[in-house]
């Protein structure tokens, strides 16, 4: 009986010793707030079938960081990251209270700059242009049926009125997250528009 008690204490100690509080997390991560408008879109509220909702980004590698002096070189910080990724969702109203995500084939996206793929959300990649030292994205999302639509940027983030752009770089380099306010969103983080 005594042996069993000792073994129970021993196993409890093993379980307890495998837990830790301080060493979890991701320590190569840096989140910063930068100027608004890194990602923009046309605030047209009425479209026709066949039109594209175009999202655009064209931001410098040198960014003003809130609360700091000096421009932050995001390209050098990230070990020359070639891409910054962000996500957004386009939904259509299906009844008074419900919205459905619009799925289109990747080949239907009008990719002019950067890259994008579509699933539960649009995954956009702003590509670095070494000529003018900017990250660029210009992708049109086809609007293929009539209805009430909305656009939001909160799928992979906690913020409603910001877009979060995350650097894609080597594991040992700093992962930089840029928070940038997006214009034309309401207080819930949506931009509403119609397709007629």
């Amino acid at each position, binding site marked *: 009986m005594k042996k069993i008690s000792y073994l129970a204490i021993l196993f409890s100690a*093993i379980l307890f*010793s495998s837990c830790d509080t301080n*060493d979890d997390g*991701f320590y190569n991560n*840096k989140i910063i707030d930068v100027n608004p408008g890194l990602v923009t879109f046309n605030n047209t509220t009425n479209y026709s079938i066949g039109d594209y909702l175009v999202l655009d980004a064209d931001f410098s590698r040198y960014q003003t960081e809130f609360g700091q002096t000096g421009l932050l070189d995001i390209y050098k910080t990230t070990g020359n990251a070639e891409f910054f990724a962000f996500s957004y969702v386009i939904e259509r109203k299906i009844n008074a209270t419900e919205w459905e995500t619009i799925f289109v084939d990747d080949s239907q996206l009008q990719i002019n700059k950067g890259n994008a793929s579509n699933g539960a959300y649009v995954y956009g990649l702003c590509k670095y242009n070494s000529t003018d030292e900017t990250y660029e994205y210009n992708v049109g999302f086809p609007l293929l049926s009539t209805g009430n639509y909305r656009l939001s940027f909160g799928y992979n983030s906690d913020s409603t009125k910001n877009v979060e752009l995350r650097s894609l770089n080597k594991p040992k380099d700093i992962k930089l997250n840029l928070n940038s306010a997006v214009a034309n969103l309401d207080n819930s983080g949506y931009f509403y528009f119609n397709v007629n």
Partner: protein
Amino acid sequence: MKKILIALLLFSGIVNAQNESAISNKKNEFRVDVLSAILSSKISISYERFFANDFSVGLNVNYSDSKKLTEDFEEGYTNNLAKYEVNPYVRYALSKGKTNYYFAEIFTSFNGGDFKEIIREENNGTAIYTTKISTYSDIAAGGSLGYKMYFKESIALELLVGFGYNLLNTDKSPDKITRVGINLGYRF
């Protein structure tokens, strides 16, 4: 299954049949942690001095150079990389037997390693974030439980599980340190 049970019974008999006083007369023991060596490339060597009244004292020294832990540190899964520990300890045997017994220990740990943080550097109007690696050291206190058995009156096999908390520098050092091992030793 039957054969395994018989083998275990025989094994247990061999262990218990050893001369307990012969073991008691041997007051010193060196051990190496084979579990840490295999799993985490950690060299862990211990010395223990036995006294007559079920108490013993000892010193454990660890040095770690694990490729996996270094990669985790470099890739940001941890912000500290433990490299060394010097652990003096006091033990008390919880069982009466000398050939196999449970024990409890309290220990202190002088431990240290590398610490990584992200800093902002500004130069000529532009800034970058970069990682800065420095060293840390701390003192921890903790306790362990273990089980030890002897073969041939001198060869020790020891299982040990314990943990302790760093006390002085937890901004940089890990909150908790663990003492888990399977040790093979020689008592003389």
